């Protein structure tokens, strides 16, 4: 068994006797470090922990199978390390979403310097996989989200990841501030995975994505193993996504489980009023399909997203 090498790729002094640091664990082939490199990334948001488990599973696998490693594999479990250790989604103190500040800058405030440090550490990687949970409000099936402009390059790669859904969305200017956009611009093919729910971990999803990462690494020449038998994700291009937003404030009580096939007109859940005991509204599926997003946090305001359904055309 061989261990990866733990390295500190970014460190900055905090005011009182501590450093903000980003660490990675690097695995290299027996023959030595290669220019060919993949980066597995999680914890850009401090309340998203599913990726931490995937990083553990991957590290465990690589330690046990070090002879299979053909190229450099870097694992970064905790980018917003301060946030992860304190249940804080944004960069603590600054209250800034790290994934809206890329590519960052050395001449700017701490969050921008962290972003710059992340980009510099990963620059030159052939592929990066950025693992997000959803936030604490929504539960998601394992999916990869890709901007339309990147679809040609990234969809074939996403199809290797053993996920359930590939969601191709229109380019939005604000998303140019994300890690994925910054890395794709620099030539690193970067996939954004969303799965599970914030502040929790789901073991099954972790194992599902581990298989996908191993398969992708086998097919792309990072591991000397046979490709795994992975599932083919549903492609968003062949259908439509319906958004279910709460029509009124209250307590959302789901009527069905996440990740179910549902029919148009099915009841997804109720919004109830704990004070009066009255059911305020029923959330009805506007289309049939798969309920790939379901609200996990029960308090809703008008407009709060309670679910998303993907329905195939025709």
């Amino acid at each position, binding site marked *: 068994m061989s261990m990866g090498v733990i390295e500190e790729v970014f460190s900055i002094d905090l*005011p*009182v006797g501590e450093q903000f640091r980003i660490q990675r664990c690097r695995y290299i082939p027996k023959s030595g470090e290669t220019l060919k490199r993949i980066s597995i990334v999680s914890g850009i948001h401090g309340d998203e922990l599913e990726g931490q488990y995937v990083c553990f599973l991957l590290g465990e696998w690589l330690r046990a199978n070090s002879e299979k490693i053909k190229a450099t594999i870097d694992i970064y479990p905790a980018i917003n390390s301060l946030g992860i250790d304190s249940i804080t989604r944004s960069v603590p103190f600054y209250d800034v979403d790290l994934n809206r500040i890329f590519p960052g800058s050395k*001449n700017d405030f701490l969050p921008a*310097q962290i972003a710059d440090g992340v980009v510099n550490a990963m620059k030159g990687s052939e592929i990066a996989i950025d693992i997000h949970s959803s936030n604490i409000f929504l539960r998601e099936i394992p999916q990869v989200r890709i901007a339309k402009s990147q679809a040609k390059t990234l969809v074939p790669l996403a199809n290797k990841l053993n996920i359930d859904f590939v969601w191709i969305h229109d380019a939005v*200017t604000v998303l140019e*501030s994300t890690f994925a956009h910054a890395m794709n611009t620099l030539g690193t093919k970067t996939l954004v995975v969303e799965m599970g729910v914030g502040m929790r971990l789901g073991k099954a999803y972790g194992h599902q994505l581990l298989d996908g990462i191993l398969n992708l690494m086998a097919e792309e020449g990072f591991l000397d193993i046979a490709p795994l038998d992975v599932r083919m994700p549903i492609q968003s291009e062949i259908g439509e996504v319906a*958004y279910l937003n709460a029509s009124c404030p209250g307590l959302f009580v789901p009527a069905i489980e996440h990740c179910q096939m549902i029919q148009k007109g099915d009841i997804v859940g109720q919004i109830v009023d704990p004070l009066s005991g009255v059911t305020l509204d029923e959330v009805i599926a506007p289309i049939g399909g798969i309920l790939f997003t379901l609200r996990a946090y029960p308090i809703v*305001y008008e*407009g709060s*997203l309670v679910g998303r359904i993907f329905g195939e055309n025709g």
Partner: protein
Amino acid sequence: MKRIEILNFKSPNRAPLIVEGFLFGEESKGPSLAIVGAMSGDHINQLYVASHLVEYLRQKEEEGKISGKILVIPAVNTYALNMGQTFWPLDKTDINMMFPGYAQGETTQRIAAKLFESLQGYDYGVILEGRRDQGMCLPYVKIIKSDYEDMESARDLGMRFIHYRPYSPIETVMLQYNWQLWGTKALSVVFGKNGVIDHNASSEVQGALVRLMSKRGILDLPVFDGFQSNIIQPENITILKASYAGIFDSLLPCGSAIEKGDILGRITDALSGKKLEKIIAPVGGVLTCQYSYPLIFQNSIAFRIASVE
């Protein structure tokens, strides 16, 4: 003065979020101006200036001095103001990152949509903004290059500095950019330090707003001229960073004229008290902005100096 409800948004258990506007004058009489105050819960100085302005305009209206239409919305995110938070208390989203809003979307998108709807059709728009970092600054006009910006109204404020720069991607979902795109001559006035009231900055900003209203024929009052504003582009700003983390002492207030070589601040080790750094001005100019929290992070921006080329 008419006190109007801009939006009324129910909460599961709290009393509803009610955003109020104060309307003065009439559109038919002259140009129109809308002013938006605290969109974040820590923009207390912005709330203070806006509410003072409401009282001032109420008096001026009684005196018959209002010759256009003015809307002032002192606070948008009252929920956050009432609990010492910065953003929307449930999901921590920033209302000023949700424009132009979406009436069928998430909660803060709906709030932004409703607010944005109420801001349509005004000739001029002013957003009172706090800082997005732990700094404090001289009051300045922030205007982004959207191709729809109006420098004339920015100059009419008569503030000392106008920061004129290209917009970043995140600014495409902020109010200034969208308001400009929808045809209002919108700009931001950035001032103070979040969470506190700076009386000098407040009266300077209020004076600037009154000047704009007077120069644009919205308020029938003579006013003194302000500054002949200096246009500051990013290349006119020198950034001084802290080489060390620790306890930060600033030795000069914002607005100080400084010479090359002046000592601006000191950093000491937070535990041992050892002197770690003197921050020295590498150029002369005006100290426009500084870090304003006693504990500083390594590489944080400690000071910004604006210089004439």
